[in-house]
Every structure is written in C-alpha cells, then in structure tokens.
C-alpha cells in the first residue's frame, strides 16, 4: 500500500514537473485560459479527402493483396474515417485489414497491433483489445494504449505502473499527453490535467497540418476539463473551437448541449443537441434535447425524443451493449428503474471504472437501495475525481444514509468545483445544503 502510494506520488511528481517546467517556458498559457476568445487557428480540412485516399489505398491493396504495409496504411485510414464520419463499417474494415496485415507478416513491431486494438476498442470489445496489446511488443505507444484500455476497465493501479514506465521512456507524443491528462483527471488532479492538455494544445494549434479531427478532439477534451473546473467560458470556447476545426465533431455538440443546459440557455442547448443527434443519435445528446424541449414548453417534442432514446435502448439490448448514459438517463428521470440497475450492473461487470460505479450508485439510489448505492459511490469517488456530478451523487446518497457530514462535504465540493454543474442538480445541491446547514 505504502509502495503503491509512493509510486503514485512519484508518477504525479514527474508529470507535475513536466507540466510545471513546460508552463514556465510556455508563453501566455495563462492568457489562453483566461482570455479565450481569440481568432481561431484553422487547420487543413484533411477529412474532405479521406474517402479519396482510402479509395487509392484500396486500389493499391487490390493490386498488391499481399502487401502488409499497404493493408496497415489502409487500416489506419479506415480508423481515421470512422472517427470523422462515425460509420461502424469502417471499424470492421479496419479490423479486417489489420488482421490480414498481421496474418501476412506477424512481426510488425506493434504498429498494426495498435490499429487492431483501436478498432476493437471502438467496438467496445475491451478484453479483446487488451489481449492484442498485451501480446504485442511493448513499445511506448503500445504501453500507453494498454494503460488507456486498463483505465477504461478501471484498473488504475496497473495504469499507474504503465504510465510510470512510459513517462520514463518518452515525453514527446500528443497521445501520451492525452492519456496522462485523463489519468490526472480521474485521480483528482484536474488542474494539472488541464495544464498538460492546454500546453499540448498550444503546440498542436500552431501546426496547420495537424489532422483536423484529432485537433478538434483535443479541444473537446479541453472543453470537458474546463467544464469540470467550472470554467464555463473557456469550456464554451474550446467546444466552439472544435467545431470550427472539424464541423462534425459530435462530442463538441454534446459538450455544448450539456454546457447550455447547465446554464439554462435552453434554445441553444436544443440547437446543439439537435446538431449532435442528427449526426449520431447518442443517448446523452438526446437526453439534453429532451430536457431542452421540455424546458421550452414542447412536451410533444420531448416525448418524441424520449421515444428515440427508447429505440436506441432497444437496439443496444439487441446488440448486447449496455450504455451507462442510458442508465443515467433512466435514473435521472425516474423511469425504467429496474432496467437502469440492470444496465449499471452489466456496465460494472464489463468495465469497472469510476463512472460505471457512479452509474451503479445512482441507479441503486433511484431504486432506493441505499446501502448498495453507498458502497458503489464510495468506490466511484475513492480517487477524489474532481467531477461535481460524482460528488453530488455522493452527497445525496450519504444524506439518505444519514451520514450528514459526508453529505455536507460532497455537496460543498460539487458546488465548489462547478456552481453550474447541472441544469437541475446544482440548484438541488444548494437546497439540500441549506437544509443540512439548517439542521
């Protein structure tokens, strides 16, 4: 335990030092955070040529079907197009091309294995992805991918060990920064995570040829972290920046819908949710849409949106996929509570990460299974993750369990992190706090 704690401190110290030194050198990074509305840098819209490039590679592969390098390049392009367009067929194509490449020439040093693992991961085939990277040569990039998969599976101890070794071997990749930032975020070091990501973004923004979707995704992540920190102006700017860079960045629409909902800017929330769900009908985005419709006095529209959520849920079940966003939606709205609990339990069984535990805690709470809820929320918050919604959940559950001191502590924590963390729960956290203080 002591060893683990020391190791974690060491990882954080190293990452912190990198961040601190970089920030000392960085010019105007503080300005970036506090004065966000500068003219955006535009990158080359490489995504517009993706299908043409893929066609070129497909023709080459047709001519040279035994070329493992061309198959690998093709797999990489399919993955890029999946991220840009969201067509799951591209994931399957990428998987097939990567597998063919590895069959032709099994010793490829980890590159093709990473493509294969990425394709599997994006299909939520976590264990298969983990197996691929575990058996691949342990180059830095593979180790980082492994760390990232393990983080999704909730194995933060092994993640920490892998990040320690990766930190030693290389500090140069943007991918490494993203994964380190995620680890910092989950383990209660939100500001360090933001600094690391912002510093990397500053460099990425200076290059015109950075792939547009990649850069947009980094801006979305920066927006997510800014929202978590209650820096709503910066969060909005980052999401908007992402959409300027890559107009189909669904995560940016979802982020903006969440942000505007939290601020009760319902018309804008609805617009963003519409834009996002028109591209990919995700439960979270649809949920913001339904909430916005209801707030704007459109119960029929809200009902239709909720019906679509149900369709998505049914399709999920047919495919054996359990969506934590759906469970949260059910719990939040007090509907299908047994389903919510079942989905949450399936999620924990599939990948027992912080947010699966939180989903389970909230679903258990919605089903008034307070002891189960308490156990789950304690696990969800054990790393001190600075996410206001987690702490709100913890506060409510603790209050129901008559642990008033813990309730007070977590509700205060939630509001301190982000006074506008949720369109409804932020106000309810204040009400509950007032009651507790009244007691």
């Amino acid at each position: 335990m002591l060893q683990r704690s020391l190791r974690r401190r060491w990882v954080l110290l190293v990452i912190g030092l990198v961040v601190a030194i970089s920030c000392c050198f960085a010019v105007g990074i503080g300005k970036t955070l506090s004065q966000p509305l500068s003219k955006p840098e535009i990158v080359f819209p490489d995504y517009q040529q993706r299908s043409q490039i893929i066609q070129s590679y497909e023709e080459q592969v047709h001519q040279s079907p035994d070329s493992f390098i061309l198959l690998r390049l093709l797999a990489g392009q399919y993955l890029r197009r999946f991220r840009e367009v969201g067509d799951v067929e591209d994931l399957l194509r990428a998987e097939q091309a990567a597998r063919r490449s590895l069959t032709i020439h099994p010793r490829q040093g980890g590159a093709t294995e990473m493509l294969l693992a990425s394709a599997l991961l994006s299909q939520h085939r976590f264990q298969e992805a983990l197996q691929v990277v575990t058996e691949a040569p342990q180059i830095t990039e593979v180790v980082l991918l492994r760390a990232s998969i393990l983080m999704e599976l909730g194995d933060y101890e092994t993640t920490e060990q892998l990040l320690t070794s990766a930190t030693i071997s290389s500090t140069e990749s943007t991918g490494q920064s993203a994964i380190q930032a995620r680890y910092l975020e989950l383990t209660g070091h939100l500001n360090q995570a933001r600094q690391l990501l912002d510093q990397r973004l500053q460099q990425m923004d200076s290059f015109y040829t950075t792939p547009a979707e990649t850069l947009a995704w980094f801006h979305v992540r920066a927006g997510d972290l800014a929202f978590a920190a209650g820096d709503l102006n910066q969060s909005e700017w980052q999401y908007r920046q992402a959409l300027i860079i890559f107009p189909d960045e669904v995560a940016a629409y979802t982020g903006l819908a969440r942000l505007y909902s939290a601020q009760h800017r319902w018309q804008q929330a609805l617009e963003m949710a519409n834009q996002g769900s028109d591209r990919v009908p995700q439960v979270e985005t649809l949920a913001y849409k339904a909430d916005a419709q209801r707030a704007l006095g459109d119960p029929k529209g809200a009902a239709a949106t909720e019906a679509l959520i149900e369709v998505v849920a049914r399709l999920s079940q047919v495919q054996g996929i359990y969506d934590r966003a759906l469970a949260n939606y059910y719990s939040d709205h007090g509907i299908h509570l047994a389903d919510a609990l079942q989905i949450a339990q399936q999620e924990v069984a599939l990948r027992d990460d912080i947010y699966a535990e939180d989903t389970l805690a909230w679903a258990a709470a919605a089903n008034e299974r307070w002891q189960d809820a308490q156990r789950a929320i304690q696990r969800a918050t054990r790393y001190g993750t600075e996410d206001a919604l987690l702490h709100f959940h913890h506060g409510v559950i603790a209050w129901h369990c008559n642990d008033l001191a813990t309730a007070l502590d977590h509700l205060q924590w939630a509001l301190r992190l982000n006074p506008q963390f949720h369109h409804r729960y932020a106000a309810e956290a204040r009400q509950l706090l007032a009651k507790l203080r009244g007691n």
Partner: protein
Amino acid sequence: MTISVQQLSQGSSQGLKLAKVEFINSPLVISWYLLQHIQRWTRAIGIGIAILAVTFCCAVLPAKASDHQDTTFLATKLTAADLTDLYVFESPNNSSNVVLAMDFDPLIARGEIRPFDPAVLYQFKIDNTGDSVEDLVMQFQVEGRGSNQKVIVRGLGKPNAPGTISRLLPVRGRGSLDQPFKAGQATVFMGTRKDPFFFDLEQFFKVIPDRNYLLQPNPAPPFTVLTFRPPGEAKDFLDPFNVHSIVVELPKAAVGTGKIGVWMTTSIRTPRLRSGQFTQIERLAVPALNELYMDFKDHNVSNLQTPVADRENQSKAIRGFVQAIGRPQGIADAIISVAIPDVMQADLSKGSGTYFGTQLAQNFGGRRPKDDPIDVTTAVTFGSAVTGITQGTIPGLISDNVGPNNANFLTTFPYLGNPR
C-alpha cells in the same frame, strides 16, 4: 425529511411513459427507426469512448523508407517536417550549376492534396570549409493557408549563428507553389513531386523487421529472411506515392569552389525560444544511414544534433551493427570513412559524379535522383563492394533488385517527376 432521487428528478416524464411505449411498440415506427437510425446508431458504438481511440489513430502511421517517417513525433504529428531524401548533383543542363533537392512529408497518396505547414522552416546547410559546421544556409517557408500558400526564400547566406537554433535571413524571393521561380541567383521549386526514392521496403521489413520505426528496442540480427526478392518479383513500395520537394539550382560559385558538405534540417518555433528563433527537429543527409544501422531510439538524438556529433554517435551504431551480423570491422571502418559525419559530400571542382564519388572516386560525388544508394549501402554492408572483404557476405542482401523508373524523373528543372 428525506428527498428521494425521484423527487430530485422532478420534471421527469412519468406522464409520457404510456404514450412512449405505445409509440415505440408501433411496428411502423420501429421499422422507420430501424431504417433511418440503425446505421447511425450503430455508428455511435465506440464514439462514446472516443477519449481512447483518437490517441491511437493518430499515433499509428506505419512504414518508413529511406528516412520516411523518422521518429514518432515526425511520423505521427508533424509529417510536414519529416525529411526523407537529400540530393546534391551537377546540373544536367548547365555545368556551372549545382542542384540541391530536399524531399519531405512522405506517403502522399495518388490524388491527395496535402498542404505545406507554415510553421516549419526548411533549410539546406552547406559546409565549404570541411569542419561539418554550416557556412551557408538557404531557408524556405510557406506563408498562408488554404489555396493561397506562397513560398518564401531566404539566402543563400551566412547563418546568423550555426547550430540547431536558427534565425531567419532576409527574404531573397517569393513565388508560387508547384511553379519554378527565381530567387536571387537561384531557380527554386517547392511543391509536390513523385517520390523519386525507390526501394523494396516490404521485403526490407521482412529481412530486418525490427528496423520498423515503432518497434523498440531493436533486437539484434540474425535475420530470419536472408534475401531480397529476385528481379521481377521485387517491388518499389514507393512507386504509387508522392512527396513534397524543394529543388534549387544555383551557380556552383555561389556555394563554393571545392569540396562541400550538405545536409538539410527542419525546424519549428517553440514557446521556450525567443521570438524569431527556430529549433531543429530533424536533420538528414546520407540515405539509409539511420535506418540500417542506428537504433530507433537514437534517431531523435541524431536529429537534434549537428554533424559535428556524428563521429561518436553514429560510428558506434555502425560498428555495433556490423559486429552483430558477423562481418569484419573493416566493413564498419569503410562505412564510417565515407558516411560519417552525416553530410552529403560533393566536389564542385569536378564535372560529374557517382554516389560517394567524392570520397571513393575523386569525382563530383553527391547523389542524383537515379542513384541507387540502397544497393550501394547493402553491397558494402553485406557484400564485398569497396572493401573487397568476402568474409561473412550475405549474397541475397547485396541488392534489393529495384532500380529507378525513368518515368519518375524529368530532364529539365526541377528534375523530379510530376506527381501521380
């Protein structure tokens, strides 16, 4: 008093539940949704965990040839700064002129439009005093974004300070991409070309798979595949690909009078530097030197240094490789004597040249686009070329059996063929 989660969730749609169930259960509606949304919904699988996948999509870009996709940073993040090949040759059309060509940003697919990055400073560096320190530099940048990118040329001139930190020289000329133009005494071309490099990369990776840039540390030989493919079966992997090029033709007299050493660099601004300064992120001259002999983890060290440091670093790698394949140290000595420091040597006082000819044949030396540096390097390393040493030769590795395709070259400036 207690508040339930349900109470906290006031505003939820209990009243809508029935209507919703009826709506959902309508076969017509289900069919419509299945048709309209199933594909879009299935797309959503995975997007929910985009936090992971982006890192690895952009982290994985495979394949490397002469020096194509050198180091992880260059291959995954800034391919625009990724140098591939340097050519230094006597002008075919004017014996008073010398031509310098720099290729970078590899693996441009047929028909792909790839822009230039204004953040990158490209430089030819020329030593005309024999100390591996640049006496003259010529600098290139693009300005602007979108379809209006223009080329800016600075130099030929003395650098403000030699080394890995560069400052810009005064502007000598401006021009359009993909069109020759004059900048002082130089004729300049910057644009997309057919990649002139030719190599059976596919088989090379089967021979030495662990030179693949993502596999580190590279285990030592012995090799599991001991031959390149025979003529007729061997394939030039780079045949379908284009590359970005800068080609300059200028009077020999502007560069020097005798032996020169040329290398090329890419540099970017970083926040830690003062305004107007660029820091070197890649350096290259002699082809296949890094790829064949040097551990990948050392590539970036080499990229960030000047040629002055090569004797110690690269010599050690060459000796280690030659020893690992079981060949006498005389092979390593020969390679080191001609290839280290990593600068392209040329003798401007001579009329025509061959690859490594400055060192080995007292001619112009340099490297022409049709030269076959892979065959020269493999013939020395695995055969008896230059040294006459026959001990431990590996005959199947003496040539990759891929030669130049005349269709990929021009007889007039800019000499590198039109893009595919």
